[in-house]
């Protein structure tokens, strides 16, 4: 008992404690309410968490401002949509195709531009986002302006989620099964996979490149491959999120892939805390749930977001739940504060 208590009062322990509580809450949700609307909303929120975590790798860890993230989301959605509706593939079989398509897109978009200054990257990624959207709107294979509809949910063999599943006397319908499926995917990929990456060599390389690219290069970090790896991982995560979303809503339309969507996910990452998993999760939950809770104020949410973004950048640039935060009830709160201002800025002050 003593060692458990000591464990959970340390910084890492606190995080793990919170994570466990969240996991339990997520899995318990369908037992609290099976209202279809709530389940759908919760599933959507989880997908946005995955999306935000992916962008977090690109923006938060590697410091690459990607303003066209929605392009990869679209690639994943359309790839799975086209293969399932036009060629009749089962949803799980499209996963490798989605991954491949996103890797390809990441290389095509990132390849030429990651060599250049970070400022250019922002505009170019925005341009790519628009290219993908307009192309999807103009071609007939992507359904043109009406998009694709009638996308099936996940099926394995002849059993699909929509058939439902009875476990231990309880019947779970298609929507709930999809919810659990998404939750598991998000947790494995996002909450376990990404922090592991971030704490390893690759993560450290990302942070080195983000803080001072020239110094990183001098230390032997191959900045180009580091950046493009981050970019591709982000792309694949977004593609999978797109696929999940397509199977949830059953339709895809080019109007859901506008710049505003990229900006929303960016805001989730920035306002939540760049490079911080719990922060980003909070941010993602905020942008999905706030529209539902603040319906009236929401009419001009973009204005609100603009103001929020500015406020955060000017007054709390590390976000609501910064990556280096020490939680108040952790016993580590008295340890020395780490100076996280990037080297370049410090040098300029001299």
């Amino acid at each position, binding site marked *: 008992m003593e060692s458990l208590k000591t464990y959970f009062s340390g910084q890492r322990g606190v995080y793990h404690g919170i994570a466990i509580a969240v996991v339990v809450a997520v899995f318990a949700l369908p037992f609290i309410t099976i209202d279809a609307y709530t389940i759908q909303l919760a599933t959507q929120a989880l997908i946005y968490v995955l999306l935000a975590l992916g962008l977090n790798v690109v*923006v938060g860890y590697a*410091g690459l*401002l990607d*303003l066209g993230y929605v392009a990869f989301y679209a690639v994943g959605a359309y790839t799975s949509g086209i293969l399932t509706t036009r060629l009749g593939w089962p949803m799980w079989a499209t996963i490798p195709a989605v991954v491949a398509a996103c890797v390809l897109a990441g290389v095509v978009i990132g390849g*030429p*531009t990651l060599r*250049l200054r*970070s*400022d*250019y990257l*922002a*505009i*170019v990624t*925005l*341009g*790519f986002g*628009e*290219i993908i959207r*307009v*192309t999807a*709107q*103009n071609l007939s294979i992507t359904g043109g302006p009406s998009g694709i509809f009638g996308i099936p949910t996940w099926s394995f063999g002849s059993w699909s989620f929509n058939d439902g599943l009875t476990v231990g006397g309880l019947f779970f319908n298609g929507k709930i099964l999809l919810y659990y499926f998404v939750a598991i995917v998000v947790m494995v990929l996002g909450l376990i996979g990404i922090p592991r990456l971030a704490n390893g060599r690759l993560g450290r390389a990302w942070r080195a490149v*983000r*803080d001072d690219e*020239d110094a990183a290069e001098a230390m032997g970090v191959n900045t180009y491959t580091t950046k493009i790896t981050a970019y591709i991982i982000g792309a694949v995560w977004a593609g999978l999120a797109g696929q999940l979303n397509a199977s949830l809503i059953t339709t895809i339309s080019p109007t859901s892939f506008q*710049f505003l969507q990229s*900006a929303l996910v*960016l805001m989730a990452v*920035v306002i939540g805390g*760049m490079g911080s998993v719990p922060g980003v999760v909070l941010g993602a939950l905020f942008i999905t749930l706030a529209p539902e809770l603040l319906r009236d104020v929401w009419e*001009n949410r*973009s*204005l609100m*977001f*603009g*103001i*929020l*973004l*500015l406020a955060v*950048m*000017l007054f709390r*640039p590390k976000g609501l739940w910064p990556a280096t935060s020490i939680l108040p009830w952790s016993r580590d709160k008295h340890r020395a504060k780490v100076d996280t201002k*990037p080297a*370049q*800025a410090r040098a*300029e*002050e001299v």
Partner: protein
Amino acid sequence: MTQIILNGLFVGSFYALIALGYSMVYGIIKLLNFAHGDIFMFGAYIGMTCLTVIPGIGSLGIGAIAIVLLISALLTGATGVLIETLAYRPLRSAPRLSVLITAVGMSFLLEYGVRQIWGPDPQPWPQAGRLTEAANWPAGLQWGAQRIDILGGSLTGAQLVLMALAVVLMAVLALYIGKTREGRAMRAIALDKRAATLMGINVNATISRVFFIGSALAGVAGVMHGAYYSSITFLMGFLLGLKAFTAAVIGGIGNLYGAMLGGLTLGLLEAFGTAWFGGEWKDVFAFVFLIAFLTLRPTGILGERVVERM
């Protein structure tokens, strides 16, 4: 064929005016002012409001447009300075990422702030301020809607007036940067900010001046856009801003002549692109060119004038 070239040059003039602001700001403080396109839009809205609110302005015809141009230029210039002071200056020593994100936030603020005030629907430009409205031109100088034939193609008088105005503004700017003290100060800061301070240059004031001029030019372009096309909307700056950035890159960022050349080049590229591939591919065409330039010749046609400091 000539018509396509003329169309391209006309649209290119707008791109050039907006690209100038982008280029100037980038040259001096290495910031891509994401909100610059929205300042163009804001200028248009100010112009429209002036035309409706100022009493008796309708009777001045073309003179009204000129007055409104001036007012809008001053007000958008001031807005640019305000934005710089409140949002960008505090973050001058922050990582680049933060400033870029701030610019994105500012862009949203301008776009949706305008939407909040003037509504989401496109606004028709007041009749009194329309360049092609015959009633606005003095009798005997009815150039507005008159088509003038040039080597096989034709342009309206209004279009020629606008293009001439753009050329004049660019020439004045070139003279300013090249010959005046303030212009030299700008070039000095672009080369080496610290050395410029040591030489006694007031960096903050100069940067404010750059923002003022760049934003004023964008504001003028906004009023011109409204006066010619007769309709404005709160999102019109978004796409144009991106295209203007593309133009700046094509010409060579940080380079004033590059911005002008880039603007015209982009206009021409788009005109030919849509003629060959169809109207729906216009934006894709422009962005593909952006990426091509950044990959193959990132310094642009005329080469850029920014110094990468170690």
